[in-house]
């Protein structure tokens, strides 16, 4: 009876049919850290909202009980639920970039939570704000309190959100995908900080995440959810070592952190010329003048790389590292300020768009967000064959034949050719995008974060597909990613970028096992799940 949260056989249904949470039971004791793991659509967010008493109008609790701190929320009035929020349950929302009111100062937003907790305005509120900001690890809190959210970095905003959650001295904090929008190193620091604060105060923590790695690193207990149902729960070790449920096993298999590292490419034939090489490439951008002085921003400095046929080179870096700039230069979308770009033994650095065009048949791109990468008005067929039509290569029945071949290459049924992107899932969209990139039979594919927008299990499938295609068609890949764990399983060579400079470069084996640079070590350490995985190994 001393459980802080006690959920019994809870079912939540949306008005238009689907049951988001199905007969789910869960207990969270005081001071315990529990992680709920699930992919999109598993119902984990609905559960979090139900505990907060913030289900949307279209959702309804159809069965079961939901006790929080001795109150049954299924029958509580709005006022009672409101009294729980903030003071008993705090929320650390998902995306810090959009979770603060952009038109209110940071201090005011914290003050609001403080005043609500106290129940009235009080004079010492300013001091409390500063103290809270200090506690969550923000330096110069007096200044920060007066700033607006857009003046703060993502990490700082996340800390502010933690401060807001803490303001009411809650007994439970729900962290909904607390850090997925942040760079890995920042993510790690903030989660560490949050955990410390929580354990110091004996607050219970409920982490909602899609990342089994994060869950196993942080939680005392893991709950795995699939389609509204709780399929498995237990201590992290127990879950990882002896998963009971197929779905859990699939999740573990898919999670890059727990997967086996790829065999490095055995040999690079010295006779083979690189398909793409960047030689001492640099890029600077001009910024608006300030007080008459010229300002420049160095996006990329002295980058050299070579990609060989059939090989995968990964460029890894956090936001602002220059990895996208490198990709755009390689594609000819951006001209480098210094250096040269060679593609198939041809200097393409200064080629005009028109002159570059024939080469594009050999060089294609797969983009980050599969939904945005497809024209919503084009059927799958139109999208796939578009490059063929643009180059005027095929017509009529030959075109339809090519489409059928391409779609079967990416393991989609031919009937999907008639579908529109909105009728497809994210993974399917990405397959279509890959099929489109393959249409011209390119020698090199540039992959811009190809799986970052997808669920973990889908990620694995897409990466498998890419691997298969490489094997069968001998395509070279340049993979740009912020996620070392993806890289670890997929790339042969790794190049680590930071603030436009190359930090380290080498085979995946060497980088992961013997990182030479401090930053690289930091990056590797920040991979969630590594904690448990290495212990397990």
């Amino acid at each position, binding site marked *: 009876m001393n459980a802080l949260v006690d959920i019994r056989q809870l079912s939540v249904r949306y008005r*238009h*049919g689907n049951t988001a949470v199905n007969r789910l039971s869960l207990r969270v004791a005081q001071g315990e850290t529990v992680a709920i793991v699930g992919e999109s659509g598993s119902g984990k967010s609905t559960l979090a909202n139900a505990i907060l008493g913030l289900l949307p109008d279209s959702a309804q609790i159809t069965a079961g009980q939901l006790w929080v701190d001795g109150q049954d929320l299924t029958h509580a009035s709005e006022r009672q639920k409101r009294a729980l929020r903030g003071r008993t349950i705090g929320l650390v929302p998902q995306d810090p970039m959009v979770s603060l009111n952009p038109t209110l100062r940071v201090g005011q937003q914290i003050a609001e939570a403080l005043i609500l907790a106290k129940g009235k305005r009080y004079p010492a509120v300013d001091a409390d704000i500063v103290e809270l900001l200090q506690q969550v690890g923000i330096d110069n809190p007096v200044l920060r309190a007066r700033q607006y959210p857009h003046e703060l970095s993502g990490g700082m905003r996340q800390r502010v959100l933690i401060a807001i959650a803490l303001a009411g001295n809650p007994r439970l904090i729900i962290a909904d995908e607390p850090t997925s929008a942040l760079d890995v190193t920042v993510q790690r620091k903030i989660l560490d900080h949050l955990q410390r604060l929580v354990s110091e105060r004996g607050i219970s923590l409920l982490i909602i995440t899609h990342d089994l790695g994060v869950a196993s690193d942080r939680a005392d207990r893991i709950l795995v959810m699939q389609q509204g149902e709780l399929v498995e729960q237990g201590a992290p070790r127990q879950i990882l070592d002896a998963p009971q449920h197929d779905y859990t096993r699939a999740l573990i298999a898919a999670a890059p952190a727990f997967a086996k590292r790829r065999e490095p490419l055995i040999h690079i034939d010295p006779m083979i010329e690189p398909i793409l090489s960047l030689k001492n490439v640099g890029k600077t951008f001009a910024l608006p003048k300030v007080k008459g002085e010229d300002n420049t921003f160095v996006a990329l400095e002295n980058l050299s790389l070579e990609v060989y046929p059939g090989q995968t080179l990964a460029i890894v870096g956090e936001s602002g590292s220059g990895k996208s700039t490198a990709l755009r230069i390689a*594609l000819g*979308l951006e001209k480098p300020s210094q250096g040269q770009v060679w593609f198939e033994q041809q200097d393409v650095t200064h080629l005009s768009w028109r002159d570059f*065009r024939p080469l*594009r*048949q050999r060089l*294609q*791109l797969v*983009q*980050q*967000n599969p939904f*945005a*990468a*497809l*024209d*919503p*008005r084009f*059927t799958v*067929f139109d999208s796939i064959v*578009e*490059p063929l039509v*643009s*180059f005027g290569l095929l017509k009529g029945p030959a075109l*339809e034949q090519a489409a*059928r071949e391409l779609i079967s290459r990416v393991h989609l*049924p*031919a*009937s*999907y*050719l*008639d*579908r529109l992107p*909105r*009728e497809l899932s994210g993974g399917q969209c990405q397959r279509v*995008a890959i099929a*489109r990139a393959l*249409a*011209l039979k390119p020698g090199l594919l540039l992959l811009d974060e190809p799986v970052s927008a997808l669920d973990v299990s889908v990620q694995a499938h897409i990466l498998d597909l890419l691997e298969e295609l490489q094997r069968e068609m001998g395509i070279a890949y340049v993979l740009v990613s912020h996620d070392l764990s993806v890289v670890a399983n997929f790339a042969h060579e790794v190049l680590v970028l930071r603030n436009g400079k190359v930090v380290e470069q080498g085979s995946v084996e060497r980088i992961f096992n013997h990182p030479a640079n401090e930053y690289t070590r930091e990056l590797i350490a920040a991979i969630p799940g590594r904690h448990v995985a290495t212990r397990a190994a």
Partner: protein
Amino acid sequence: MNMLEQNLGRKTMSASPGLWRRRSRLQRVTATLLPLLRRPGFSLALLVVVFSLVAAIAPHLLSSFDPYATSPVDKLRAPNLIHWFGTDELGRDLYTRVVFGSSLSVLSAFLAVGIALLGGLGLGILSGFAGGRVDAVIMRFVDVLLALPGLLLALAIVTAIGFGTVPVAIAVGIGIVPGFARTTRAEVLRVKTLPYVEAARLGGASWGRTLLRHILPNAWGPVAVLATLDFGAAILATAGLSFLGFGAAPPAAEWGTLIANGRHFLITAPWVSLLPGLFLVAVVFSLNHIARTFEETQR
């Protein structure tokens, strides 16, 4: 939307993969339109608009009376079974007058929106596509047009080129150009930077192809919604100008003229002004409703 997806899913799934053929555009259009038609509000609005379109093209199909024949004996009859909207001060059948007025009002709205579309789309695409100085110059020009209050600009144009339906339509059309130009430009700019446009470019598509196949069709949605909305607005604006006495030559009468002429009988025979007014409101409201429904389905 969910139902639609499921329906489509089932249909495509059931077809055997080997026999795949491309689906025609018509099939896709009906697939999006059918569920909309099941909404009573939408159907009703569509009905009103279709009615006014038919009235505009073939008014004699909808009424057997002569809109211009006076009949002093029947003057100012209240609505009844023979004269559905009653009669005006010269005994002319008002329903017939409204139906025949459609051709002027609807066609002039078409002309106005056509001008606005032509000018606005042209300016907007050029501006959004060319960027740089061209964009700056065009947008300043659009700002200038925007700064001129619509009705006043229309009045100035009508002063210069004379009264009548066509001048009024031209004036109204020019007045709504800036809105179109701005929307088109914003849409072109938005769509231009979307990944699939970049993908098409990298897939070897020329700018022309990219513009025609990707940017315009995707930028078209909000512009089409605006066109539908402005169609209603153009009807209102022409009505306003005819109300002020700049409209068609008598005895032909646009809706605005009918309302204007009937207003003298507001106390004694209110239907003469109110019924044409109600009809006008119904048409414009229906257009707005259709525009909003499309907008909602686009989102």
